[in-house]
């Protein structure tokens, strides 16, 4: 019941905003809707905490510790993004970059996007998972091209085409999975339910699942932004409005990785080998290295952080591929803190680029002097991203490194190189931006400070002290993924 309520809220708010989206209070309605969704998701999480994993709506939905924490994360970040979006889009309106009809579209699609992600996280049916992923992509495609500039349209087109091709591969993988499942579970919708498949994974034909996983890896991997299927990501994340960049980087990548991990669990159960894990390790490491080195060449601030997203998603994929309790725990923690940090960074970046009227890093200077909240937010966010203690990312990366040294020691130097290069790349650019004198073209701004502050405090807390319930939570989730 809680679950259906959760999903219905976002759908209804989306529909409402589609009709009244340019009302004065539309951003407030957006925030209210997201906040309500967040509250309901907390209730859902509580239910899982008390009674354990459960199925709902006749096996259609499946809620276990792994996906419910992602649900809570998604609704939380969407709420804070909605808060940020209120101030940010108002400034964009004032600068004339966007009109009333598009604002309406923007708000409605925002809620629809949240709905699609929640559906993807909560559904038990792998086919519906695919449909929701596709829906989430489609909801954001037109948002990326919202500003209608040539570069925005180019980015949206690339996003549309490349993710479309990628997700088609994932569909083929799902078809193959269904083929293997049908032989064991019989025809009909039951054969696509993850819980059923997980139970009989030992009986599923290994050759078919191997082939299926290759397609699923390429398909969902494109959505995660793994190299070499990542070409759309820097463009799409840098050309859309900043709130969209924040949710794309912070949330959609997580959901795609979630889908990949669910499939990996099935394949591992069937083949009994480490093939799936090894593939994920390979792609993850490649993404980390390529993204880190690419970050050194960036001139646009949002592209820089988009590559940072690729890098961190690579680390998370690597962790899940490595397997074992420590690495999986690290991976889940990484997904959590990266979402919070990346969205906070994008909030600061958004305001920074608004203050200077450009996204070029060479033109952004003196942030701390000009607007301390934005400047410090950016600097602290980047410190967190680079993996400095005492922030949360340090904890997760430390866990992953430990697991690597235990299980695959030869890969540790590669991981360290990637992390180091990313560190250098980030600081090289951000330090001049944060420090220095105020350039003449900088404009003052009423920034949305609460979201950034909230996120950074959470990340700091998670780095220093992992609450007991969260630790047990993760451990249960890890156990389920074995």
């Amino acid at each position, binding site marked *: 019941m809680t679950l259906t309520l959760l999903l219905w809220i976002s759908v209804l708010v989306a529909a409402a905003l589609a009709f009244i989206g340019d009302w004065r209070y539309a951003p407030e309605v957006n925030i209210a809707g997201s906040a309500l969704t967040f509250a309901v998701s907390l209730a859902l999480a509580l239910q899982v905490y008390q009674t354990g994993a459960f199925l709902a709506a006749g096996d259609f939905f499946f809620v276990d510790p792994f996906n419910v924490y992602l649900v809570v994360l998604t609704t939380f970040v969407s709420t804070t993004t909605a808060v940020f979006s209120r101030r940010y889009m108002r400034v964009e309106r004032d600068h004339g970059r966007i009109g009333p009809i598009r604002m309406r579209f923007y708000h409605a699609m925002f809620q629809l996007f949240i709905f699609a992600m929640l559906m993807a996280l909560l559904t038990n049916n792998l086919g519906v998972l695919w*449909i929701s992923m596709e829906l989430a992509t489609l909801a954001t495609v037109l948002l990326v091209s919202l500003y209608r500039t040539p570069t925005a349209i180019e980015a949206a087109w690339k996003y549309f085409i490349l993710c479309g091709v990628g997700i088609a591969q994932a569909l*083929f993988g799902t078809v193959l999975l269904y083929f293997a499942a*049908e032989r064991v579970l019989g*025809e009909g*919708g039951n054969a696509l339910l993850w819980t059923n498949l997980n139970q009989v994974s030992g009986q599923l034909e290994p050759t078919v699942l191997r*082939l299926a996983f290759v397609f699923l890896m390429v398909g969902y991997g494109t959505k995660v932004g793994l190299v070499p299927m990542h070409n759309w990501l820097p463009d799409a994340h840098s050309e859309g409005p900043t709130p969209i960049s924040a949710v794309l980087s912070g949330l959609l990548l997580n959901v795609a990785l979630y889908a990949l991990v669910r499939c990996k669990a099935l394949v591992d159960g069937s083949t009994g080998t480490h093939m799936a894990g090894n593939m994920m390790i390979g792609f993850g490491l490649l993404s980390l290295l390529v993204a880190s080195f690419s970050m050194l060449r*960036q001139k646009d601030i949002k592209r820089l952080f988009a590559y940072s997203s690729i890098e961190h998603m690579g680390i998370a994929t690597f962790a899940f591929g490595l397997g074992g309790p420590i690495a999986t725990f690290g991976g889940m923690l990484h997904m959590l803190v990266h979402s919070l940090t990346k969205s906070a960074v994008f909030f600061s970046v958004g305001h920074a680029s608004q203050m200077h009227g450009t996204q070029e890093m060479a033109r952004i200077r003196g942030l701390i002097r000009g607007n301390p909240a934005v400047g410090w937010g950016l600097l602290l966010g980047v410190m967190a991203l680079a993996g400095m203690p005492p922030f949360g990312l340090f904890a997760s990366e430390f866990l992953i490194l430990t697991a690597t040294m235990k299980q695959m020691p030869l890969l540790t130097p590669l991981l360290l190189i990637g992390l180091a290069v990313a560190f250098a790349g980030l600081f090289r650019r951000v330090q001049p931006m944060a420090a220095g004198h105020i350039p003449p073209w900088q404009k003052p701004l009423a920034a949305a400070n609460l979201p950034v502050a909230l996120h950074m405090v959470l990340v700091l807390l998670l780095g220093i002290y992992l609450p007991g319930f969260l630790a047990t939570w993760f451990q249960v989730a890890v156990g389920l993924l074995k």
Partner: protein
Amino acid sequence: MSHSLVVQLNLLLAALILLSSFALLMQRRMFAILHIFAWQGFFLGVSTAIIGYASGVHHLYLSALLTLAMKVLLLPYILYKLILKLKIRREIENMVNVPATMMIGIALVIFSYHLTEPIRQLSVLMTRATLAVALATVMLGMLMMVTRSHAVSQIIGFLAMENGLFFAATSATYGMPMVVELGVALDLLIVAFIFGIFFFHINTTFDSLDVDQMAKLKETD
């Protein structure tokens, strides 16, 4: 090899679908591409109906109807209207080396045949032979997207890829569960809606639908 007549018809339709994929790769004119795409959808729908008849899986009739409605009537109609409105009916694009593309296409067909070998050995369905054709159609659709420089052709390549996926579902498993099929159809409708909007944006901003013009976002050193 004593196949029943129905199975033979299905194989013939699969061959025609493969042929239409190649024809799409080679065609230069917009309307010709559109017609071939409609034919491909037609073959696909008839094939689905035949499989439904032969296997007794009755929801395939519904799938076939849906396919025919969307891929033979609705999508081509939308594209037709778009082509007329955007005034691009006479545009003939320059294509990369046609004979080389065809050779690559043949290589892809052989590759997909090889790739689906394990499934073919395991499957007990009468349609197992056509899975290779389905995967080949997917790959040829992707090849079309890669070798084309016009937005409409790229989209048709994408839709041809979706055709291949649908065909794969019917070949491997007598169709996905109805829920999934309806969801995929819905997604396809939304895709059609979105690319319609996209064409207008691209045309307005760039004054042509040549995708090669959209190459400004690069890594700058």
